[in-house]
């Protein structure tokens, strides 16, 4: 770890990853409690990617994300209370409750409008890169999307345009489809004849990298290299972060199959059992980072526990804030179609 990433960077990342994990666990609970309707998508299992990449971005950079956006918004620094309020459709939400879970975003932090249309965010993100090149010296557009987005033709068009025009775009493909998936259980998220998603970007002459998305150090190292390349004006870079799909995301509707994450697994105080022991032991990025930190530092266990307690508290407060927020007034529904 030391060469790759110092502890002073690792701990803040663990803090963010824990915040996201506890947020998503709370979202799942609120859905099962019927506090909001409609389909939703959790970032559990991918925290390392969003947190590592965001930790390297600058305020001037632009961000585009997808239906699986909760982690990106929190990693970038949005207020968990306003994010949760948006998911509950409340007036104090990031978008006054108009967008909901599929569309979380925060323009002050550089987010473009978040598209729930698969492939949508890649091409919008290329537009972000176009704007950066035209008006924001040295800025780049970071585009987070799933492997499934590469099934959509517009994504190919967008890769081609970004490459042709050498736009400063960092494409982050979060390939979470390497886990078990059975037909009928949910979306086929990798119905792709390609056995190498990077080869698609390569076919339009984009530089590519592939990294273990559960290893925050690996993501951080690759992303800093990619970002340097982007800022140098070389054009776009394609980074594939491969993760093992969290089992709770396999059903069409998320299920708390691994229960609330028990951080004692990381410190060895508790051994996971059952069918998901393997995922918890090897593929959970939060536990993995905590485990690494613990292995290098005797006092880590206590620090992890207190970080986790703080994260739980922040999320509890966020949920309280969101639930206490009023719904928007019906008559406001007709306003702001136009700016």
């Amino acid at each position, binding site marked *: 770890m030391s060469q790759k990433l110092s502890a002073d960077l690792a701990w803040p990342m663990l803090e963010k990853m824990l915040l996201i994990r506890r947020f998503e666990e709370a979202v799942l609970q609120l859905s099962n409690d019927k506090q*909001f*309707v*409609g*389909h939703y998508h959790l970032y559990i299992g991918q925290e390392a990617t969003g947190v590592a990449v965001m930790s390297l971005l600058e305020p001037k950079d632009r961000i585009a994300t997808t239906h699986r956006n909760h982690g990106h918004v929190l990693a970038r620094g949005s207020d968990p209370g306003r994010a949760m309020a948006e998911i509950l*459709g*409340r*007036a104090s*939400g990031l978008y*006054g*409750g*108009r*967008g*909901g879970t*599929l*569309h979380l975003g925060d323009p002050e932090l550089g987010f473009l409008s978040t*598209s*729930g*249309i*698969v*492939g949508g965010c890649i091409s919008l993100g290329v537009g972000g890169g176009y704007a950066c090149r035209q008006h924001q010296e040295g800025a780049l557009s970071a585009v987070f999307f799933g492997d*499934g*987005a590469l*099934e*959509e*033709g*517009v994504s190919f068009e967008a890769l081609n345009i970004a490459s042709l025009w050498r736009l400063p775009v960092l494409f982050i493909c979060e390939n979470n489809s390497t886990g078990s998936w059975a*037909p*009928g259980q949910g*979306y*086929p998220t990798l*119905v*792709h004849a390609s056995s190498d998603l990077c080869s698609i970007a390569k076919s339009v002459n984009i530089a590519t990298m592939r990294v273990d998305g559960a290893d925050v150090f690996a993501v951080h190292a690759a992303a800093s290299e990619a970002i340097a390349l982007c800022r140098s004006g070389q054009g776009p870079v394609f980074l594939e972060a491969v993760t093992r799909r969290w089992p709770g995301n396999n059903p*069409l*509707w998320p299920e708390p199959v691994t229960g609330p994450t028990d951080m004692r697994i990381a410190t060895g105080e508790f051994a996971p059992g059952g069918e998901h022991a393997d995922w918890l032991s090897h593929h959970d990025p939060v536990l993995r980072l905590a485990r690494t930190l613990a292995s290098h530092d005797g006092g880590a266990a206590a620090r992890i526990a207190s970080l986790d307690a703080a994260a739980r508290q922040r999320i509890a407060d966020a949920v309280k804030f969101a639930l206490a927020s009023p*719904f*928007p*007034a*019906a*008559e*406001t*529904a*007709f306003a702001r*179609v136009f700016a």
Partner: protein
Amino acid sequence: MPRQSYAEALVDALYDSLAADPRVSLIGSYVLGLGPQRHLMERVRKAFHDRIADPPTAEAGAAATGIGAAMAGVRPFVDLGTGSFPYLAWSQIVNEGAISCYMSDGRIPVPVTFHLLHGVRGGGAAQHSHSPQSMLCNAPGLEIVAPATAADVYGLVRAAFQSPNPTVVVSHAKLLGIESDVPAQKQSIPIGQAEIKRSGRDVTIVANSFMTQLSLAAAAALAEEGIEAEVVDLRSLAPLDETTILNSVARTGRLVVVDECPLRCGIAAEIAAVVAEHGFGLLQAPVVRVTRAQVPVPYSPPLEAAVTPDAAKIAAAAKRTLGARA
């Protein structure tokens, strides 16, 4: 009379169409979306697995595959998913599939069937609550059906598979769980025929899809107040059954048009225009349109309700046409 949910009847229609014609196949089988009824499709998947394939998330490619296959003589069904996903296949649907028969002087018909789940469904927000059928009505060459009941979705889906033309079947997400009477022997229903779902002499309410269910509820409420509303269920949006609409307005002299598409250039506008052109003398009061407001669909429940038609808004509109009695 036996009863079935809309979803059960839709699945029966797919099953029977696959069983009836070996040229039939399904490109996409998540026809029932994310709702509790989705498991009903398992029966079809098991029985016809060799004629069912789920495509990549590539709506344009999937639609074109179905269209091209239909040009080559087979009869594919392409499930487009949510009502906004056809936008990704728009060129294929309106500018390839719809025009081939005409442009080839009738030599290349396109017997493909599309299906989508349209409408405001609760939490779908701006990108997953669409009703694209009004836009599709502006594309010559498509047959478009918007059933409201189990019997109608069965009959119209069977007809769609039998039709030599590209047919778009739109199912409202909120209809899937709604039960209604079905005949012991469900039958194919000719495309292009509206049906009077409730008779009444005071005002004509023209609706389609889930709006027909809301209109029937509104008519029941109006009846309590002594107002007899006639509910004309279009069932087919293209071709449009102008005769049934005009005959009803001839009886009532008043017209409320209900549709969930946004107001401008929507199906409600078309119905109002047909009557303003061909039934002008029949009208005793201004036409009233009840549609989705001309705004994107918001996520928050109270906002979503505010922009969407409901039975109360329909009943109020009917009363307005009567209040305006000259």
